[in-house]
Structures are given as C-alpha cells and as structure tokens.
C-alpha cells in the first residue's frame, strides 16, 4: 500500500538547478487567471417568460405528450425530448415540495439573513418545482406541504429578472399532505 505520508516522488533523479539561480528563492507557483465574458441570450420561451415575469405573470410550458406543465419554460419536454410551444399562465401560489435550512452565507448575497430556508416551490398547476427562498415565518415552521405565496418587489422595481420575487411567504392555508406534496404530487396534479 502506498504510504500516504510520503510525497509522490518524481520519476527522475534530482533536477540540476543552474548555479546562477541555485542559491535564490525559487518560484514555486504562477498566477494564471482566466476571465471569459459571454453575451447570454436566453431562448425565446425564456425571453417570453422573463417579460411576463416583469408584469408579475408566471408562465409555464405544457407538454404536448401528456399535458405536464414545466416552469420555468424551456421549450422542450425533458422526458421526451419533444418541443413545446404551448404556454400557460400559472398562479403565484403553491406549496413547499422540499426545503433546506442553510447556515452558511453565499458570496455575493449579503442580503440573506443566516440561517435561511431554500425551498423547492411547486406552483398550483405546475408539475415541477423551482428554487425559491422561504421567509416571513420562523424557519422551524417551514414544512413539506406548506402553502406559500410570492412576495413581489415593488412595481417600479420589477424587471426582466428572476429577482422579481423576493421570497415566498406562508399563506396559512391548510397544508398539502406529505404524500401529495412536491414530486409526489406528479401523479395527482392532473386529477
């Protein structure tokens, strides 16, 4: 077994460092930063989604195969590789499909109060969830099936951006039973 305490040995004998630099502090590393800039142009379905989002409307895409609704819309049904062109407007209410209480800060998000709850938000009428922040209640009140509603930015602060919804707050409505919440709801949504 390899001894984990011994450094990997070079295959060679010692490298002959030239005399002219042998007494000097050797360079051991070089900085080689990379910075690449892209123009990200979202696909037409996502463009449409963002423009509607700026008007507080949430669009989903309905699959031509079995009517499953995906949000945000991406123009394809990922289960079948089939193109989708039917949009459907969804409400800004739904439930928590799953969640996690995070105690670590995120670089670039100093606005988040630690600890915070990230959750999988399942909108009424959608078959899949997406990531959202749950707030407006104590963290230990959050549970799978908890009914939530979007808290939007002020009208004049809305834009073509996912940031329009500040967080999701509990509505106080009766919770969705666990066996019908989140992805477990897939079978039941179209009932």
């Amino acid at each position, binding site marked *: 077994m390899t001894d984990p305490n011994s450094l990997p040995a*070079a*295959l*060679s004998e010692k490298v002959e460092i030239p005399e002219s630099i042998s007494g000097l502090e050797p*360079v051991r590393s070089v900085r*080689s930063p990379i*910075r*690449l800039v892209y*123009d990200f142009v979202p696909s037409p379905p996502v463009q*449409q989604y963002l*423009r509607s989002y700026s008007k507080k409307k949430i669009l989903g895409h309905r699959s031509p195969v079995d009517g499953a609704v995906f949000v945000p819309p991406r123009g394809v049904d990922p289960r079948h590789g089939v193109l989708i062109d039917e949009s459907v407007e969804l409400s800004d209410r739904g439930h928590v499909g799953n969640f996690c209480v995070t105690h670590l800060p995120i670089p670039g998000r100093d606005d988040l109060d630690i600890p915070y709850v990230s959750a999988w938000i399942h909108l009424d009428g959608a078959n899949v969830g997406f990531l959202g922040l749950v707030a407006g209640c104590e963290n230990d009140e959050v549970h799978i099936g908890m009914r939530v509603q979007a808290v939007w930015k002020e009208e004049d602060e809305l834009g073509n951006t996912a940031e329009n919804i500040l967080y999701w707050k509990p509505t106080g409505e009766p919770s969705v039973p666990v066996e019908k919440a989140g992805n477990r709801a897939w079978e039941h949504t179209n009932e």
Partner: protein
Amino acid sequence: MSELEKPLKAELTVEYPFTRTTGEVIGAFMTGLREKRLFGIKRPDGSILVPPLEYDPVTSEPLTEMVEVAQSGVVETWTWVDPPRPQSPWDAPHALALIRLDGSDTSMLHAVIVGSPLEMKTGMRVTAQWKEDRVGHIADLEGFVQEIEKADS
C-alpha cells in the same frame, strides 16, 4: 414577442483566479525569468528544449539537466496580432512569433515588439526585452526586440 422588442441579453462572466504550482523544472525557468535569465533542458538526444519540460515530448523520459541559453535568437515564424487580445500582456498591436534562442534546438512563443508588420521578417534576429518588475512569470519578458547589429559583425 413583438418584432420591435430587442432580444434580452445578459453579460455572463466566468472568472477563475488559478494559481498553479510549478514543480522544480518549470519553477527554475520562472526563477530564471525573475533573474533575467533564460534556461532550457537537455533531452536524451543531446538537444536543448526551451522552454524546459519535465519529460521528453518524444521519449517521455524524465529530464534533469538544465542549461542557460542566450537572450537572443532567430524568428522562425511570425504573425501580427491587431487588435491585441484582451487578456494578453500587450496593449498595442504586436507580432507573435516562434523564436529559437541561440543554444536552443526548439522555439518558444512570445511577442516581437515592433511598430508594424513591415518590420518583421522570418530569420530576423531578436533579443529579449525584460520588464522592470519581474515576479517569475512568462510575462516578465515584455517580448523580444530587433537585435542591433554589432559594428564589427
């Protein structure tokens, strides 16, 4: 979406701050750059490889014997870069060339600092031009400049 609406676009920046360890051979070359010296390494067939690598590119044998090479050499091939690439060390148009230094059997890639492509010629002799502040990085070389012909040559 109306035709009058321009497509939404967002600038997406991917940035990596990499710091790479050099090991002994590449490290020695970098130390040399800091000290305004250029080194190569001897291959099993006796030829000198510049810049030096840890293993022979053909036989894959480990290489250990480093030797100093000259600061001047010959342009083996060149092109002209205009505009200079955004992250490159250069702010002005420059030649990019493969330069074989005296004492080396291979060529290295770097810039030749001249005013226009009309001043470039395959076979021209060039000499290293160093930055004032050097840290042990390939950009410690500002590039190469046309070697001034000695009066007695």
